[in-house]
């Protein structure tokens, strides 16, 4: 059934933004405004990727996926690029995979930059008008709920953070 619908949508060759608007309505009705941000690849399920430059076809795929299958539509932001991945959220997608652990080791090195990166990603979701939830090692959390690493980083001085930890 869904393959037939996908073929019909493909044949109808709807205008990109019309297709996107349909998918976005369906996403809002089915999935609400929450976007799950996976910081690793531990969750099962396929993520849509786009290694080339053809963003147009990619967004059509995202919208068609939303219109033809229920459940989460997940974007591999690493291959798609963060800018286009964010745009995909308005074309029916509701999950992003950005394996930050790997990035943090290979690119950032330090924990502080990792926290900055996480906030940047949450900001990306919020500026698309959506609500972010972080999923890491299979555990889902609210991004505003601080982890011990963030507490150390956010404290005005490291001494204060140490006192906090001492209390705990």
């Amino acid at each position, binding site marked *: 059934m869904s393959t037939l619908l996908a073929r019909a949508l493909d044949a109808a060759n709807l205008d990109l*933004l019309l297709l996107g608007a349909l998918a976005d309505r369906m996403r809002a009705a089915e999935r609400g405004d929450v976007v799950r941000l996976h910081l690793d690849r531990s969750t099962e399920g396929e993520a849509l990727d786009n290694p080339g430059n*053809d963003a147009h076809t990619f967004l059509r795929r995202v919208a068609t996926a939303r219109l033809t299958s229920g459940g989460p539509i997940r974007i591999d932001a690493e291959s798609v690029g963060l*800018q286009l991945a964010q745009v995909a959220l308005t074309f029916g997608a509701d999950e992003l995979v950005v394996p930050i652990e790997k990035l943090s080791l290979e690119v950032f090195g330090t924990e502080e930059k990792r926290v900055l990166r996480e906030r940047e990603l949450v900001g990306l979701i919020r500026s698309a008008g959506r609500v972010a939830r972080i999923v890491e090692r299979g555990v889902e959390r609210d991004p505003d709920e601080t982890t011990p690493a963030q507490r150390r980083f956010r404290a005005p001085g490291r001494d204060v953070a140490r006192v906090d930890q001492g209390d705990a």
Partner: protein
Amino acid sequence: MRSAAFNAISDKVRAGERLTAGDALALFEEPDLLALGALANEVREQKHGDRAYFNRNARLEVTNVCYASCNFCSFAKLEEGMPGAVTLTVPRAIEALRSKVDEHTTEVHVVNGLHPGLPFEYYEELLRALASAFPHAHRKCFTAVEIHFFAQHYRMSVRQVLERLIAAGLQSLPGGGAEIFHPEVRTRIAHDKATGDEWIAVHRESHALGLMTNATMLYGHIETFAHRVDHLLRLRELQDESLKLGKGRLQAFIPLAFHPDGNGMQKLPGTTGVDDLRTLAVSRLVLDNVEHLKAYWVSSTPKVAQIGLSFGADDVDGTIVSETIYSAANKKAPEGLTVDDLVRLIREAGRIPIERDTLYNVVAEHPRAALEGQFKVRERLQGRHLQVVS
């Protein structure tokens, strides 16, 4: 999802009414991005149908020595002799371009730092050398900020500077240096170069002398939506005046996404895809008197630029052999796209690729049929007509 204000604005757009500052601000704040994009696309298709333009251009920066200290810039080195500071002699500049310019190149785009130690004759000599080495390539050189600097530094009026450069071979002005006009922002990011009013004055004078120019806006740093709206309205006002005069005018508006690496504002997050598309769409709707809107792929990545063609943009700029200003901000964008890359990008977006020259004369059309390999397109450099040979 779309707001009531949006519906009222849609009615105005469809009735051909001009949008107010309040309308523009409401559009920037409209939550329904795709509805906004679709409205901008209506205007885009009215003006240009399915056509999407690109050109073959080569860029040159003859010096990155610059006395201005803009916080957003990763390109300029402040003084001669600093590590990485480069100033090319005229023969070296021509030599540097030889590898980038071929017989199909229709434009040479030259922008530079504000070098306090060169004589004015250097720039005249550069233009004459470009004209003699590459007579087929249109010379789009020097931003309004440079022209303003020349006037101050060499003690001439803006008009005198322009007249001398035109006599030496200048054919149009690029749109750079506009940043954000509003002084609340400009004094904080670019305090020691042409003000917004001075930038506009240079373009006004250029238009009066019959030159075509472009305009840009650097967004996504410390400015608010209100500052962007102010910027767009000032350009619309300038264009009204220039159109009334009927000589030169703004040909294209190019929003430039701020990129935060390697400059004084690197703690800022930079722009997002959604913001890039939103800014294109609002620009298309507000700048009703500017013909072309460019989704500059170097600034917004080729992927977002391609989607921009559905959000109001009708141009993706050029092949840009060698660009060093954005690359200095460590952008991941490829340095140059080939003609094939651009044609494919545009076709995949469902548009018809039109190769243009700087003044938007058609150099070659690449009809969709060619995608299937049924036709070969014969490109004619100066021709305006499509030639399809089977």
